[in-house]
């Protein structure tokens, strides 16, 4: 008989990890990636060589979260363009005593995609300009999380409605929608790396692309894009609950500009075409009310 003595290592099971954004638990999370790095510059002085290193640059944290759409509302949309905090809460033995926290965060990207046979996703990224890492914030849910089961409302590929000029006769295989926000923080001297203001660069661009199995679609002539209305289209993506249930998420993209087309053919493959559209907005509130 052997007795093994030593430290007991434990792991954090995914079922005991929770993601919160501005106090609201985010459901359907598939992955959470948080990081920070310190931009240190080495200092070299004549007569001494290395005399230390110092922070030079901006102190930012990066968070990226991927989700399956499992709810009929998306709390992230309401936070686009606004300052948010959030965290990944975890801890040994379901203690939820640890947190990867961030504040002064802004959503810098938002995307949604789905292909035949998949559940629709809705991913987003955040840049955090305040504290990032362990926290003593009263807003943290550390040690204050209770398991809250949900009945997922899954948006599957076969229950979505796509409004396009080509979808009725050409089988759409996938859509991919992405929005990126170019944040411009304003740093003042003496503020210890904390930005005092934020500006969002415009235009804010939403890119939408479709992959179709081609039946009768013919790619527009590039030179017809000069002074033509054929390159503007009203698009809509409606994600419905499985088995033709009610709509749980939608994206409306009126007056989308066709900016790219590609065709691909090969032996043994179906002829496929990819179409890429862009919508541009000059402020985030107009975008949110028009698209979501």
């Amino acid at each position, binding site marked *: 008989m052997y007795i093994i003595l030593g430290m007991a290592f434990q792991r954090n099971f995914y079922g005991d990890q929770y993601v919160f954004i501005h106090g609201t638990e985010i459901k359907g999370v598939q992955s959470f990636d948080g990081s920070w790095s310190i931009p240190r*510059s080495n*200092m*070299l*002085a*004549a*007569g*001494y*060589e290395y*005399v*230390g290193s*110092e*922070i*030079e*640059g*901006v102190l930012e944290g990066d968070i990226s979260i991927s989700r399956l759409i499992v709810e009929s509302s998306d709390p992230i949309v309401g936070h686009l363009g606004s300052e948010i905090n959030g965290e990944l809460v975890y801890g040994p033995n379901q203690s939820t005593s640890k947190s990867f926290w961030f504040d002064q965060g802004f959503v810098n990207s938002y995307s949604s995609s789905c292909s035949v046979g998949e559940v629709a996703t809705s991913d987003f990224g955040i840049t955090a300009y305040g504290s990032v890492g362990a926290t003593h914030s009263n807003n943290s849910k550390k040690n204050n999380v209770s398991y809250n089961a949900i009945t997922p409302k899954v948006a599957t590929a076969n229950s979505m409605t796509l409004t396009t000029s080509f979808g009725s006769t050409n089988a759409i295989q996938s859509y991919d929608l992405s929005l990126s926000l*170019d944040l*411009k923080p*304003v*740093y*003042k*001297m*003496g*503020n*210890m*790396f904390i930005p*005092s*203001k934020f*500006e*969002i*660069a*415009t235009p804010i661009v939403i890119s939408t692309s479709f992959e179709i199995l081609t039946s009768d679609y013919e790619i527009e002539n590039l030179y017809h894009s000069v002074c033509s209305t054929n390159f503007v289209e009203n698009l809509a993506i409606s994600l419905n609950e499985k088995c033709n249930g009610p709509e749980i998420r939608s994206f409306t993209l009126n007056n989308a500009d066709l900016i790219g087309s590609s065709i691909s053919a090969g032996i043994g493959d179906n002829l496929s075409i990819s179409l890429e559209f862009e919508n541009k907005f000059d402020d985030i509130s107009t975008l949110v009310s028009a698209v979501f």
Partner: protein
Amino acid sequence: MSLFFKNLKATIDGQDYYAESVDLSESISIETFSALGTKGSYAFPSNKPEGSMNMTFYLSSEAEISNIEDQYGKTGFVNLKVGPFEMDFGLLNSFSVQADANSIIKGSVSYNYYGQMSSGSTPTKGTAEIVPAHGAASSGDFSDIGVSGILNFDYSFSQSHEVQYGLGDNAPSKVVFNEASKELSISAIVSDVDFSQTDLTGVNALCDGEPGDAGFTKKNISVTLNNLCQENVGSLSVSGYLSERSIGVEPGGEVVETVKVIEKFVRDANCDE
């Protein structure tokens, strides 16, 4: 003699500096002539060797700045030393500091020296760890010009001298101070600026106003330099008049106002002439 960066410790008037870069250069004026009845030409030096030292350095202590400020408007020579190279007759030409919100603050200094450098033994490498002034921890008092917070600043001092030699002298015999000025230029977003306080003219147009008035009155502004541990590393101040302001903006950005205060510097004669 092998010389490396690690051997070139920079010292000005006995004060050590942590130089990121240092350059020395010197030259001499040569007169050539020939004469009837001679073949070829002859040359002789028409002036003593003169040179310059330029240095960019980390600001890590109050003594570094005060040592340079002590030379503002003065005519006395200071000793310059860079590793084994030594110059006995140095005069401060310019000193400048630029800073922004997220960077290490460095100073740049320029000296003219008279007479050629001498060379001694090679110093050994020193050891040090510094915590330099940093823009994230440095701020200032700009209330006289109605500014509550700045994005960056640019401080500069410059002066000129006339160095005279006497017949039979190898070293300069007289130094005459010509002029000097120091300037502090700051940039701030317009929401942090009381626009009327940066007016170039006052309520009485170009006539001088009372201290504290907007417009053409004497303004005292200063920058306090701290390191990231919030330790004071020195200060830079200007007591002068608003001479320039400008407004600029880039796409997607906020409007930025830049203001410059300039102070003409008067020689401190110290009864030595």
